[in-house]
């Protein structure tokens, strides 16, 4: 997506948005880890194998896996940012998703000159692992 900074447009890739969102989400208490989709897991695994074959440096995103964030650019509305998490239940799942949503939204708002309605953050609790 393109954001404006003064007179100069700045292009921010979906991957950059996903990384910003993942970083903001994984830091929230109650988030055990992020949950990438199967497609992203397979893609990531294949990339690792390809990199090891070509001796390219490996890319380790750590716990802030951008594969757990889906970015959907909409022509008729705000950009949808879907974050998939595994919740621990302490604090409650509901409090956790609210905190994740707020944190991700705030992180994305640090991009220059975006209106508060530029993004819709959707949090999906894929599973819970109580006590983790």
């Amino acid at each position, binding site marked *: 997506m393109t954001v404006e900074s003064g007179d100069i447009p700045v292009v921010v890739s979906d991957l950059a948005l996903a990384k910003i969102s993942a970083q903001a989400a994984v830091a929230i208490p109650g988030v055990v880890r992020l949950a990438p989709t199967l497609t992203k897991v397979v893609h990531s695994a294949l990339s690792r194998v390809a990199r090891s074959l070509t001796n390219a440096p490996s890319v380790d995103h750590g716990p802030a896996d951008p594969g757990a964030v889906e970015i959907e650019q909409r022509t008729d509305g705000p950009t949808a940012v879907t974050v998939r998490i595994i919740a621990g239940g302490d604090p409650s799942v509901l409090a956790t998703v609210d905190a994740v949503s707020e944190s991700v939204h705030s992180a994305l708002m640090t991009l220059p000159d975006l209106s508060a309605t530029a993004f819709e*953050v959707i949090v999906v609790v894929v599973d819970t692992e109580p006590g983790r």
Partner: protein
Amino acid sequence: MALNENQDAGTEIMPCGRDPLEVVDRARLGRMNAHMRTCPYCQAMITADLPAGSAATSLRDESVQAPDTLLPAVMSTVWSELRPGRNIPLPAVNGSAFATEQAVTSMLEHDLDRLPDFVVHLCSVEAPDDEPEPVEPRTAPALRIEVRAAAAYAVDLAALANRARGVAAETLLHQFGLVAETIDINFVDVYEQQGATT
């Protein structure tokens, strides 16, 4: 001698009239003819291909070692995505939020298993399916919960079922802000407590 700058090895014919790709292929297979052995253009192309051919052979022969973490990561995701279940909208304050039926089930099983004299065998959560899955949460749906469990010998099953219903309802409300339309507790087995005398 080398190809000139504008010569694309994939599309151009060399000055000697040979297709460079065919020359390289034949050389790699060890089927060079007399012309290829003496032609400077063909020889230059074969020499230029040596590093690539060597690298390709090396990659082909190299055993691929999958990382130890690969299989668990893939299978964990496979199971979570293959489990049937709907996304249940949560009454979140900030933005939209959903929990999978599996997420709710895991939390219920964890809390119910902490009840004395009660062991969960199976817990299922069903969101109403008489309306399409909402695009965004409006109101949280009332859920139907079914728990199959074992109870300790000689306990009051009715009282135990009531306690289990209370725990399930409290977990749903506290953790997810959800309510249950029904909570069915089915005792499918009994067990003898360790240390109990019969």
